[in-house]
């Protein structure tokens, strides 16, 4: 069980500039918990604190009733696995070698037969048998992401933390990845905490959603309770329109002011300023792009 108690965290010395303030949550077992929120809301920081990659400045993170700061790093690694956002490696390495590193917390790098079995299981589970001897730079982004998940599976921890696993994945691989994460929970009984940028993926796959704003938990609960205009509008500082599909909420979050823009072939005109042909819409597109970035 992972409990977060009164966590506050700040990068700078000034205490008024907190990246996390007074966070209290309990991670639900055997569920996908999604952390959502705007950029800079503290999602990734919270994930790092929960896994003790970033030691908590005040407050406690309890892992099975013990403060994580009092547990050896190597012992934490047997219970908690963390996958970071980008997988830029400075080394050239095969999938098999990568997955074998997942056993490091258990065997210190000396793989015994039991460890090799776990590695083989993880590789089979992620459908990577044909690629085991391929180097990571020879395979697609989706396969690479699967290789890293296989490493985490080999690590064989009850808790898995994923920091934006859908980054740099196209829609097909994103859906594949979330299905895999779902299977980790339903088939293998894992507890997964995942930071997601796309709230619709959270709405579709998470069992529990934590919406964060300005370093605080704004609202947590089941998707139907969190994916509402009342919660999301202030969290993302944006107007949301929520609809439903198969009992799951779906967010439509395109800019409502865009309704006034009509698309005539290649040219974009705005109703209010019919004479300013290109300047305003371009400026607007730039804004949208910088938001996405």
């Amino acid at each position, binding site marked *: 069980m992972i409990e977060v108690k009164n966590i506050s965290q700040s990068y700078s010395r000034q205490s008024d500039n907190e990246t996390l303030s007074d966070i209290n949550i309990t991670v639900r077992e055997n569920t996908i918990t999604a952390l959502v929120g705007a950029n800079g809301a503290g999602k990734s920081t919270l994930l790092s604190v929960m896994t003790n*990659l970033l030691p908590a400045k005040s407050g406690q993170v309890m892992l099975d009733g013990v403060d994580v700061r009092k547990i050896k790093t190597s012992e934490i*690694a*047997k219970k908690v696995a963390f996958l970071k956002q980008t997988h*830029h490696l*400075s080394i050239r390495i095969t999938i098999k*070698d990568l997955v074998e590193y997942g056993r*490091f917390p258990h065997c210190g*790098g000396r793989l015994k037969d039991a460890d090799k079995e776990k590695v083989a299981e993880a590789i089979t589970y992620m459908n990577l048998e044909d690629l085991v001897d391929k180097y990571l730079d020879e395979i697609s982004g989706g396969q690479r992401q699967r290789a890293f998940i296989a490493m985490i599976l080999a690590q064989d921890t009850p808790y898995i933390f994923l920091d934006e696993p859908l980054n740099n994945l196209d829609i097909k691989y994103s859906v594949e990845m979330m299905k895999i994460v779902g299977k980790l929970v339903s088939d293998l009984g894992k507890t997964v905490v995942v930071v997601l940028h796309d709230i619709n993926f959270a709405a579709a796959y998470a069992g529990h959603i934590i919406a964060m704003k300005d370093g605080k938990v704004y609202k947590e609960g089941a998707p139907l309770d969190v994916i509402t205009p009342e919660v999301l509008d202030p969290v993302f500082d944006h107007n949301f329109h929520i609809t439903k599909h198969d009992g799951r909420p779906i967010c439509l979050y395109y800019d409502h002011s865009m309704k006034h823009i009509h698309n005539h072939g290649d040219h974009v005109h705005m109703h209010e300023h019919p004479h300013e042909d290109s300047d305003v819409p371009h400026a607007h597109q730039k804004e949208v792009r910088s938001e996405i970035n």
Partner: protein
Amino acid sequence: MVRKLAQPLPKAGDNSIIGHMLNGIKSFFSKPANVRMVIVFLLLAAAIAGAVWLYIFSRTDLRLYRLGMTRDEAPPGAIESIMGRTLPALYAMAASAVVLAVISLSFQTIVQSRVLTPSMIGFDSVFVGTQTALVFVFGAGSILFADPYINYFITAGIMIVVSMVMFSFILRSGRNNIIFLLMFGLVLSGIIGSGTRYLQVIMNQSDFFQVQAATSVNINNMNTEIIGIAIPIMVVVVFATLWRHRRYDVMSLGSVQAKSLGIPYEREITINLVIIAIGMSVATALIGSLTFLGLLAVNSAREIMKTHKHLPLFIASAMMAALALILGEAVRVFFEWAIPVTVIINLVGCVYVFYLILKENKT
């Protein structure tokens, strides 16, 4: 079941251990990559042995031949006296090459760069600075400066402190990027260098000459006095590093992933910085500054071994460094060239760094 039946029946407790080892060796050699690795090591070892022979031959028989003598005609004690200088020189070259190669590789892993080595960010300037400060404060006659062992321990201690301060500042604040490290090293060696020069200008002349003698150590003027301590330190540094080779493997995945796999990253960095500072101080004190040897050795080992595993890389880097230094020096003595081998190593290393920087920038 099938696998169990295929194995020979265990006879006694002892045999099973030997059998296990034999199986291990068999499975090791069943992989072509491992066979290739062993062949490379054997070739390198043979090349080093050849280089050592050439070095000794050039300094003894060849020199006598040039003087028109054979070994039998040599004045009594001449060979012994030459060997008395040749062997410590060989030990010193081997020890500093091995130490530099090993700490360069571990340094590259902790800073996640193939271009940097400890020498390149101004470690050697700390050595010169320490020597100058010792003489300036205590005088050239002081035992702190004059005794090679005490001098070494003080220098090593100061280098450890400086590197800890410097790297805790760089690595812990998360600003672990090459440009920042290089600039920091450049500025640091600039500051220490000008401070050193300032002290050397205002100190008295005899002290100045003493400092000059102590800091102008190079391959032609090795400080073999400390060989008695350099060899044990080399052994300790090499074993301390090789023993952690599996941790380096995991650390090459990056700090976050290494931590998540149970590596106490901050502690590892501290331990490594101490090892690196000890190694750098012994290599610099023995043979002077060899800026690019570590870089060349580590990167050529990577090219030859084609692996990311640190155990073979450590061994191959150490062998490459020893080979480059000893063979280079042997060839120089053989042809009686005036240019020291270190100049050539630095020249080649410089070009190679340009190549690496251009290559890394492309990807």
